């Protein structure tokens, strides 16, 4: 009979506790990913055996399918506009809600609440808001003398409408920034005040650098999320009008489950994976110039 040391016992418990997740991760994430690598090189309709087609799917999506370019364009514009908007708006809201006033917990809850309600319900709600003749948005614009556009029914405004709608979930980002703000040591503000810094200088030179890791996190997660947008387009526009909201994930879904081109859809998925990876690495690479950890920039230990 041998006795386990406490550390060994703890390690065994650790593995035991993590095993269900590990099993799920391997079976439902890694496994399908590996299978989809194989499928990307096949012609597979889900129901009959896959046929190897070499690089045909990748050749087609890069040279023979204009909708891939359209889907990438739509998705990139959406991400490029909605992520900065969400980060900046989240930061502004967090700054406002970081003040010590009465009933602040209630106010914070009110701002956070919309981000809890997500998915199809929100998409349907926003369809009503964007309704050209009877919607809340155009009714509001009408009050100030503006003849509102057709929003989702007009190819020129449909994507803008979905970007506007993405701000619905800004409360989630606000909460993270708020947590970051409350982690900034007050001694730094006191020292800045002693040095004669006004509120803008304190924000620019103390607050922003101190919460820059949080902003980086928001940006990276935002990129990953925005490039995988699906529900809004699926429920609200089906990619129209005139492909103006053909998001990449929607096009992937259509190929996989409507046209039964699972091999081609797998190839599309891996291209998206590479695109997200590339953008994430670029952001991380350039983050060295503006992200500070413990008050020190990762760039040359500034």
């Amino acid at each position, binding site marked *: 009979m041998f006795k386990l040391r406490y550390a060994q016992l703890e390690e065994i418990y650790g593995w035991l506790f993590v095993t269900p997740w590990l099993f799920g991760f391997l079976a439902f994430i890694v496994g399908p990913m590996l299978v989809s690598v194989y499928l990307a090189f096949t012609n597979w309709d*889900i129901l009959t055996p896959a046929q190897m087609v070499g690089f045909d799917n990748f050749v087609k999506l890069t040279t023979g399918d204009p909708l891939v370019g359209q889907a990438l364009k739509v998705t990139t514009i959406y991400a490029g506009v909605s992520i900065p908007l969400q980060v900046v708006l989240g930061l502004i809201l967090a700054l406002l809600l970081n003040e010590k006033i009465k009933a602040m917990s209630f106010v914070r809850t009110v701002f956070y609440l919309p981000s809890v309600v997500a998915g199809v319900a929100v998409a349907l709600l926003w369809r009503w808001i964007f309704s*050209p*003749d009877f919607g809340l948005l155009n009714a509001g614009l009408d009050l100030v003398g503006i003849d509102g556009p057709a929003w989702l029914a*007009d190819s020129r405004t449909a994507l803008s409408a979905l970007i506007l709608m993405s701000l619905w979930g800004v409360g989630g980002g606000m909460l993270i920034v708020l947590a970051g703000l409350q982690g900034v040591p007050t001694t730094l503000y006191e020292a800045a005040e002693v040095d004669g810094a006004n509120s803008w200088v304190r924000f620019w030179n103390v607050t922003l650098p101190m919460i820059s890791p949080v902003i980086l996190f928001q940006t990276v997660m935002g990129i990953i999320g925005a490039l995988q947008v699906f529900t809004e387009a699926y429920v609200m526009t*089906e990619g129209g*009008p005139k492909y103006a909201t053909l998001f990449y994930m929607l096009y992937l879904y259509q190929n996989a*489950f*409507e046209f*039964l081109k699972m091999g081609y859809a797998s190839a599309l998925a891996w291209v998206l994976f590479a695109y997200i990876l590339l953008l994430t690495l670029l952001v991380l690479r350039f983050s060295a110039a503006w992200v500070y950890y413990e008050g020190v920039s990762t760039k040359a230990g500034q």
Partner: protein
Amino acid sequence: MNSRVTRRSFLKVAGGGLALSMLSACAVAPPAAPGEDGQMAEPVTIQLMFWPVGGERGIASMEKALEPFEEANPDIVVERLATPWGDLHDKFLTTSAGGVPPDVSAVDNYYLTQFASKGILLALNERVDADPGVNDEDYFEAAWNEGVWEGERWSMPYIGSTRVMYFNLDLFEAAGVPRPDEQWEAGEWTWDAFLESAAALTDTSGDVMDTVYGTMADSSMWGGLQPWIWGAGGDELNDDRTQSLLNTPEAVAGFEFCQNLIHDHGVAPTRETTQDVNLVATGRIGIWASWRGLVMAYRSYDYNWEVVPFPMGAEGKLTLYKGNSMVVAKAGKNLDQAWQLCKYMSSQEADAIWITNGGATPRKDNTDVLLNSRPPENNAYFYQPLAEGWAKTIPFTPLWVEWTRSLSPFLDRIFLDNEDVQTVMDEAVVTIDGILQGDS
């Protein structure tokens, strides 16, 4: 012989025994055979997937229909899988791919040929021929033939409807416009008469909340545009369904008629206006096309309404019939019992229940039930096109979903941007032919 059991060998045997007992617990017990004492075999469970038409109402209808079936077939237990229409077809596909499809399923005919072409449905020819309980003479020909693709029967007709025109009787009376059904009976219900009526009803002079449109323009290939295209003498595809004919002068005329309702005549709202707003429910539309399934909703409206066939175009009397299907999954374990259920779902008894929940019968022997399911009073218009042979069906192909999806942006150009139909359709046909001929 050394019979000593070591700890290692004991653990091996114990572990093996445990694994075997676990495996045997997972195994499905075979159905018991009838005993010598004549006792019934263990009931077989058959999964039935369907979309509940009208939500809770549809589930209640299904329960009502299954009750006599289960009483008459004590050896079959039906496991109900109520699934929203939007999810059902994906679910049928994925469960089929996984080898565990529901034994019997409702399938919208938009998807039937796609599923049949993938080999996941049981061909029913032999069973239909051998079963004295099934007689093709009981069904209207168009409805019966919708379940056939490439010479094989893949389904039994289930629910379905002809496309008719509904009209707001109160608006017609208020405007002093002759009732469309009276115009039809007089043989005067033509495209021109339809347009005249719509124009007489339209009033867009006041506030948007008081606006009334004579009609709504169809702008979808999911049953909406076909009656106009066919009515003008056009067609979607050639006979072998490998080429699109949507840019022929006849088809273009059909598109143009619908386009002009919005952009030239101003008797139909734009898609912007109708988006998410039920103008029919609020009594703002004079006459509009739809299926019989809508009668259940319309019965709760606070105005009087009736139905009339599609107006006569260049081709005379013509409309569309589109049904749905009950299919048997080829991978099912109990095909005989599944066939019994599939057949029953299309029977006169079950069909009578579907009619009371908004269905329009594919069966000749249920027209009385349909006539008595009022309102509307003019229920005969739902089956007359089938009985008299002027109801056409959509030429479905396994690529139907894909080619109609590819048409959407072109239809946007016609109905949203008011572009020249011929120019747009010349471009659309290139895209559609690419899909139909496997180039995409």
